[in-house]
């Protein structure tokens, strides 16, 4: 019988393999033509690759226990945000606000913020119960 530990390892392996495969496939996709040349083909394809990689992580996420999930959520929220901001500040300080590097990093932060707000709104809506 497969132990919980092994099930978790298999699920983590699947998630890691999917992320690596997604990176390789994504890398190939962006080299299909000149940058921006096939945007409406490459962009949805890249999103689809990301979605498949996300889906492959679901079994691993579902197998994690509460404490492991809390550890990942707290670390990703605070650690991930702090790391991203530190990099953005470094770009801004080194190249100025209007450089392509800074703009790209700032757009990433904006994307994160918008997605956060959407997910948070969805989370709140999902957990809303009837008013008594």
């Amino acid at each position, binding site marked *: 019988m497969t132990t*919980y530990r092994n099930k*978790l390892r298999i699920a983590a392996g699947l998630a890691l393999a999917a992320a690596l495969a997604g990176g390789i496939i994504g890398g190939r996709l962006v080299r299909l033509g000149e940058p921006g040349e096939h945007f409406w083909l490459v962009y949805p394809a890249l999103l689809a690759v990301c979605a498949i990689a996300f889906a492959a992580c679901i079994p691993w996420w579902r197998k994690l*226990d*509460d*404490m*492991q999930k809390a550890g990942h959520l707290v670390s990703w929220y605070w650690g991930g945000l702090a790391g991203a901001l530190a990099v953005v500040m470094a770009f801004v300080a080194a190249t100025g606000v209007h450089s392509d590097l800074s703009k790209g990093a700032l757009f990433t932060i904006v994307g994160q913020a918008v997605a956060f707000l959407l997910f948070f709104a969805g989370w709140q809506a999902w957990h809303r119960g009837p008013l008594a």
Partner: protein
Amino acid sequence: MRNRLRDLRHERGLSQAELAEAVEVSRQTIIAMEADKYDPSLPMAYRLAAFFDVAAEDLFFNPWREGR
């Protein structure tokens, strides 16, 4: 949250790894709960209580009811 997890585990003669495997959580989680470093969710508390066949409040002490 103070609890009797370690005592009950010892009574059953289980290691932390064996208990973790039995209730499908990580060993680190068992260690953290025993050390009062992590408060389990209600489902996890009930799962552990069911495993030891005790009431949840006999395993995890309700801090709002203690001292009554």
